[in-house]
């Protein structure tokens, strides 16, 4: 076996009251894909932040190619050939792909003069994009790209530095399957060039497919580092969770009853949804599959009154309803968990209590005044029911892990006692334990008679927890499958029907 290219030894970091990293060691060999796994809050991000100099570790040493290093900032790391592709895209949205690629290191027109050589930067962008097989124009504005394309641009940028070590943080969470395939090709090419790759992901099949070794972390400690050959999904989950998880999905065994919601010929004015029809039974969990941009999110937001409808009608219990805006939709018993938690889900600087009760404030009103006690009680109840891990209800939501934040937003909607629950990627980017909790919750709500629509990019998840799956393609409903008969192949075929 080759010498490690990057080695972290005994990394330790504590925050007030928490030991986030406890003597964690990790080594990456040249030409290896080393998967880093663990539930959210296990310490993966903290470890990476220590590597990149975002946090200063309390203890531990880092060696790159045998030499001890200590990066002061991500920029410093990059200068030493250690790059990171972030899950959270921080791009200049109104600038071009090319600008984003060369920002901070534009090719100059003449010598040292600070004048940008636009032609050269476009040429090099073309070169990078072509070499990776990306079908994106360098002149395109970032804001005109899909989330997946934006992620690919970020990957291209990292690769363009020709790094020795590259860290991917959940790169596929916003990629379509085709884009993910492309990424795996890129990773294979990087391996060829003897680049060391740290790959952080929650997706088991991906990990088992592309990685050489897997390190599992839990509670700030390294639990195991093993060769891929000796691992199975179940074993990884067991290592991550520290207990047996016999089933990945709870058994959905209560059948839906009569029709709760009916949508006829729903089209939107601007968001490209066209002529959608669906029915949802009381107690039914309806899955919506489709590629990124196929109109899944658009369907939910149209139902919730967030986008302008050009035609169609919505019937709840046989009666026509309008849902012209979220307030009206909520009055009709709708609730909507959005896809991008950080963008339109959480109020990051407000407390758990405020985040949990914002949609049901009126319940805590006595005369004109809000009872803070009532708010806190409701929040604490929810924290217990949903097993939200947080020091107290007063805590700011931004200090919670992704899974717990997601639970808080779910709690927000549960408190409105919804009849129709719209969930857009409810388990994206959250850990296995929290996922299972959320599945259980979905199951319970359905058995209580709530109608639930779940949009998800993870087909096993849809097949695991729904009664029926609706597949969308290019803004239209491409077909419908009873979950019992659904396979990933059938879903894929339908999702490309109108492309």
């Amino acid at each position: 076996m080759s010498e490690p290219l990057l080695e972290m030894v005994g990394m330790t970091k504590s925050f007030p009251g928490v030991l986030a990293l406890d003597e964690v060691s990790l080594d990456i060999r040249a030409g290896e894909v080393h998967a880093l796994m663990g539930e959210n809050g296990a310490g993966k991000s903290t470890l990476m932040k220590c590597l990149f100099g975002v946090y200063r570790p309390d203890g531990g040493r880092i060696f790159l190619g045998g030499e001890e290093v200590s990066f002061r900032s991500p920029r410093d790391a990059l200068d030493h050939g250690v790059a990171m592709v972030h899950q959270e895209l921080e791009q200049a949205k109104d600038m071009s792909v090319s600008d984003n690629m060369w920002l901070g290191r534009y090719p100059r027109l003449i010598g040292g003069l600070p004048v940008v050589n636009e032609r050269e930067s476009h040429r090099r962008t073309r070169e990078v994009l072509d070499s990776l097989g990306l079908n994106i124009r360098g002149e395109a504005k970032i804001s005109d790209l899909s989330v997946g394309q934006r992620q690919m641009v970020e990957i291209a940028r990292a690769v363009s530095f020709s790094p020795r070590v590259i860290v991917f943080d959940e790169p596929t969470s916003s990629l379509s399957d085709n884009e993910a395939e492309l990424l795996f090709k890129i990773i294979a090419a990087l391996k060829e060039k003897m680049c060391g790759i740290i790959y952080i992901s929650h997706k088991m099949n991906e990990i088992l497919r592309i990685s050489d070794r897997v390190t599992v972390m839990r509670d700030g400690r390294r639990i195991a580092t093993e060769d891929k050959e000796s691992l199975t999904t179940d074993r990884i989950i067991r290592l991550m969770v520290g207990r047996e998880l016999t089933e990945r999905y709870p058994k959905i065994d209560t059948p839906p009853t009569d029709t709760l919601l009916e949508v006829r010929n729903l089209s939107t004015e601007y968001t490209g949804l066209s002529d959608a029809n669906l029915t949802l039974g009381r107690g039914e969990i309806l899955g919506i599959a489709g590629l990124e941009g196929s109109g899944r999110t658009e369907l939910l937001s149209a139902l919730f009154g967030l986008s302008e409808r050009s035609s169609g009608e919505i019937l709840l219990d046989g009666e026509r309803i309008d849902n012209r805006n979220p307030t009206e939709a909520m009055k009709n018993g709708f609730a909507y968990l959005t896809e991008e938690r950080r963008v339109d889900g959480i109020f990051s600087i407000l407390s758990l209590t405020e985040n949990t009760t914002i949609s049901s404030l009126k319940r805590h009103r006595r005369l004109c005044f809000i009872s803070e006690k009532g708010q806190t009680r409701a929040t604490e109840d929810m924290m217990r029911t949903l097993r939200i891990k947080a020091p107290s209800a007063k805590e700011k939501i931004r200090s919670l892990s992704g899974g717990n934040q997601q639970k808080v937003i779910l709690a927000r909607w549960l408190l409105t006692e919804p009849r129709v629950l719209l969930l857009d990627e409810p388990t994206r980017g959250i850990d296995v334990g929290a996922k299972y909790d959320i599945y259980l919750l979905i199951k319970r709500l359905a058995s209580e008679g709530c109608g639930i629509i779940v949009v998800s990019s993870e087909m096993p998840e849809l097949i695991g927890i729904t009664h029926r799956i609706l597949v969308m393609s290019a803004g239209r409903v491409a077909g419908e499958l009873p979950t019992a008969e659904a396979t990933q192949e059938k879903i894929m075929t339908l999702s490309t029907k109108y492309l």
Partner: protein
Amino acid sequence: MGDNVSVNDGIFKKILHPLKKRFDDFRQLEPRDKLKRISALILDNAMLIIIVTAIIVIAILRPRFLSVASVINIISLTAARLPIALGIGGAIVLTGTDISAGRAVGLTACISASLLQSSGYLGKMFPNLSPLPPILVLLIVMLVGAVIGLINGFFVAKFKLHPFIVTLSTQLILFGAVLLYLQIGDNGGQTLSGLDRSYIDFVTAPLFKISGIAVPRYILFALIITALMWVIWNKTVFGKNMFAVGSNEAAATVSGVNVFLTIIGVFVLAGALYGVTGFIEGARIASSASYTGQGYESDAIAACVIGGVSFVGGTGKISGIVIGVLLLQIIFVGLNFLSVDQNMLYIIKGLIILLACAVDMRKYLKKR
């Protein structure tokens, strides 16, 4: 010292114990980290340190600065400026601002004065109008302020214009309106004075006296308004919604908050509060003119920022605003005591705002 602790166990638990723990933590740090900690502590509390130092220096140089008369003067000035600052505070919580506030104060002060000139006064703007009940005039100018706020809020909420642009425009419009208003009748742009006794008394009559120094009634107004605003911010659906919109407008929309009405509400409330400051200033200064209220908005914004209402949005406390206004007035009065040149005051104000904002933003820039 020891007595205090035994008198109130709560103080020990709440303040001293955590302090001691922090000090113990601190002692275990490396010298380099210690230095960092100290400089961070100083920077985070820069405003407070500067102001406390200023008070001490001024009090040593001019002992009369801390006399009863001077203190009551400072509190009175604070009371007069509180309503406008409480109004602007809401706009800042929404990540906005309101630079039309000062002119709104000017207009409402002029309207208050014109409706309450004494009957016998020669240059009366409305010669045939006998003075109205002051409380009615207060309600009228609050309504005028609310309408101004409605216009501001409507353009911000409906067209998603930045409040800075909207209120920059209304600021100009209001200034024109004040100038035109002062042309009414035979007034010819003159300063409005000769106020009716009922108005002056309503606003400035002594509540009670402390060692012979009268405490004016408008301090009571300010207290009532502060209490009211505290309830609105902390205990109502509207208040909670305001913080939600300021923290994340998109999330607020999805959560079913009526963002449109919330924004309008904040500006209408602010406008009504400008009316209150206008009403108080009309009587307190007793001669209202086109320049009345000029620059009040910058004082109010500065007070909010000093008091921790951040331009990042979604954070702020009523108590912070009260402290901010008070601290700012202490500085202004103190500088007067030191006979600092009036022109110099503007420069100092500007520096204070800049420093306060920079210190505030440090909190959000922190990474490690």
